[in-house]
């Protein structure tokens, strides 16, 4: 036997291959090198001017100018602009409505996959499916008769994430059920096999994750955790302003500065 080789033990879980999955891409640079240099210079100028003219501009406007300059510098250094990405996504979304098999959608085909472990048997998971309540505007239906190997599902999301509209989107797929290692329950792998109209991959994955997690909570704990409808005090709208004010106060805390000075002097 080769040294270091561990023979397969029939009692152990069999080794697996990574299931087919198209991973969501991380943000990549979307502005050109020339634009980055120009942006860097521009951002520095704006930031420095905000600092230099803070008396004339007033505290809040000067702070906003410095933050704006900082954002532009960060855009130049990172090479990624979220505004540009948003506009690009919108352009692609328009194309996608015309033809769902073209444009950006193609990179997420043929399937998006998400897994979750549920501490129950396959039969318990199947028997809970019919009572699973709709959560967060997601309607989840099983298509046909589910088996202990595979569940064909269809899902409808009402009110798309971040869309601010009442539009809905439907998509369908398959959930595969696999026995986990001992004491770990059953593993569910959800995949999507239809192109969702009007949704992008992150939205689809969010919906799938929400459905799987709801199912896990429902099967394991007997209910879906929520805080909707609980008591709370007045929700103020100006929390960002409040945070900024507190941050400025914190930065200008004279006691802290005095302490820092004393320590520096001592060391």
């Amino acid at each position, binding site marked *: 036997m080769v040294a270091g080789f561990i023979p397969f033990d029939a009692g152990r879980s069999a080794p697996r291959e990574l299931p087919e999955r198209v991973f969501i891409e991380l943000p990549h640079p979307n502005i050109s090198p020339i634009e980055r240099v120009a942006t860097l210079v521009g951002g520095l100028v704006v930031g420095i001017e905000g600092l230099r003219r803070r008396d004339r501009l007033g505290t809040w406007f000067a702070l906003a100018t410095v933050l704006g300059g900082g954002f532009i510098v960060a855009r130049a250094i990172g090479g990624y602009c979220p505004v540009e990405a948003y506009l690009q996504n919108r352009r692609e979304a328009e194309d996608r409505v015309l033809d769902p098999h073209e444009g950006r959608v193609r990179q997420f085909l043929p399937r998006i996959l998400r897994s979750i*472990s549920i*501490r129950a048997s396959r039969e318990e998971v199947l028997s809970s499916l019919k009572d699973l309540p709709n959560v967060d505007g997601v309607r989840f239906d099983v298509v046909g008769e589910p088996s202990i190997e595979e569940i064909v599902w269809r899902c409808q999301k009402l009110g798309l994430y971040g869309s601010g509209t009442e539009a809905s989107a439907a998509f369908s797929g398959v959930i595969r059920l696999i026995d986990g290692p001992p*004491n*770990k*329950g059953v593993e569910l792998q959800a995949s999507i096999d239809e192109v969702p109209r009007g949704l992008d991959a992150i939205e689809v994955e*969010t919906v799938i*994750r929400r459905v799987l*997690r709801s199912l*896990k*909570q429902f099967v*394991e*704990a*007997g*209910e*879906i*955790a*929520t*805080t*909707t*409808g*609980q*008591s*709370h*005090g*007045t*929700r*103020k709208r100006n*929390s960002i302003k*409040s*945070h900024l004010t*507190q941050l400025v106060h914190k*930065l200008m805390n004279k006691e*802290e500065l005095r*302490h*820092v000075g004393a*320590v*520096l002097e001592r*060391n």
Partner: protein
Amino acid sequence: MLALCWNGINSLGLQRVADPGLINPHDAIVRVSLSSVCGSDLHLIDGFVPTMRPGDIIGHEFIGEVVDIGRDVRKLDVGQRVVVSSVIGCGKCFHCEGGEYSLCDNTNPNEAVLDKAYGACTAGIFGHSHAFGGYAGSHAQYIRVPFADYGCTPIPEEISDESALFVSDAFPTGFMAADMCDIQPGDVVAVWGCGGVGQLAIQSAFLMGADRVIAIDRIPERLKLAQVHSRCETLNYEQVDIHEALKELTGGRGPDSCIDAVGMEAEDRGADHVYDKAKNLFLETERGLVLRQAIRSCRKGGTISIVGVYGGLIDKFPMGAAMNKGLRFRMGQMHGQKYAPRLLKHIAAGDVDPSFLLTHKLSLREGPEGYQMFKKKSDQCVRVAFDPWNEPTVH
């Protein structure tokens, strides 16, 4: 009902809010009789935890009386006096069944936040930001307790409210800190922080057979409290070099176990503290002074047990020392449901009485002042508890 709400950084206020009702079948409604401040509340108030919303009711350490139960609650009755664990566990998932209630898979409704930040979602916690579920806290007259069969532990008649209160959070946290050290006879344990959790970690270490415990803090009253109630040795970090002193007190070995009962807002008077405060502005969220001292001081092959709360990123972490000294790290939010029955037995037997921590009992209206007193450690304050029904002037 009346409730103490978070309105912004360093801003708390008493508000009249709707009474809580049963939402899910495993819920109970508890009439709060005492609700304590906790060091981790200060992280919320100081703005170190970014997912707070104005109007959130804070507080997570409390006892009370069950006044209503959901249709699937099996182990509780209306009228029972209970202590409620600050972390919420479903009791059924892989982690809860293993006694790791604070790692529960199912009780945090906002799983996406922690999944993004930490790579996995942990349990919901009462009054502890929306990242940890956004559950309403206990500084109120009533509170909804999800999964009440697991979260509520009935209090034996012979135990007073003041003694039972800290079984909700501080006592199991201190007990778990000592438990994670796997203390052997003859062990020397060092405990950083002599607040509520630290004091009870000291007593728990003795309960588990530690030969000596060395407590570290800078507040003379707290060090004296540790000496008087726990008969331990003490070190004031403003007066001695902690590393040198611990070596001296342990024959050059260092403590067998080091407990961090301080967490992210550690303080000192040296250059390290200035370094951390400067980096706090943009580059890190935690001040890791205690961890650095503990790693440096712990004996080779010893254990670092962390129960002081950390939330984000830490800098200047001495990984080289930790690795080459072969240290063992244990940490986590406490698993209150697992420890509560055992701790109540210890209290009933007279082994420990945590009520010595309760130095001030105030009304909810006095909440902001109570937190200031707790934060500044003024008036020899160790813990403030609010009695939500002591509000004679409110209409």
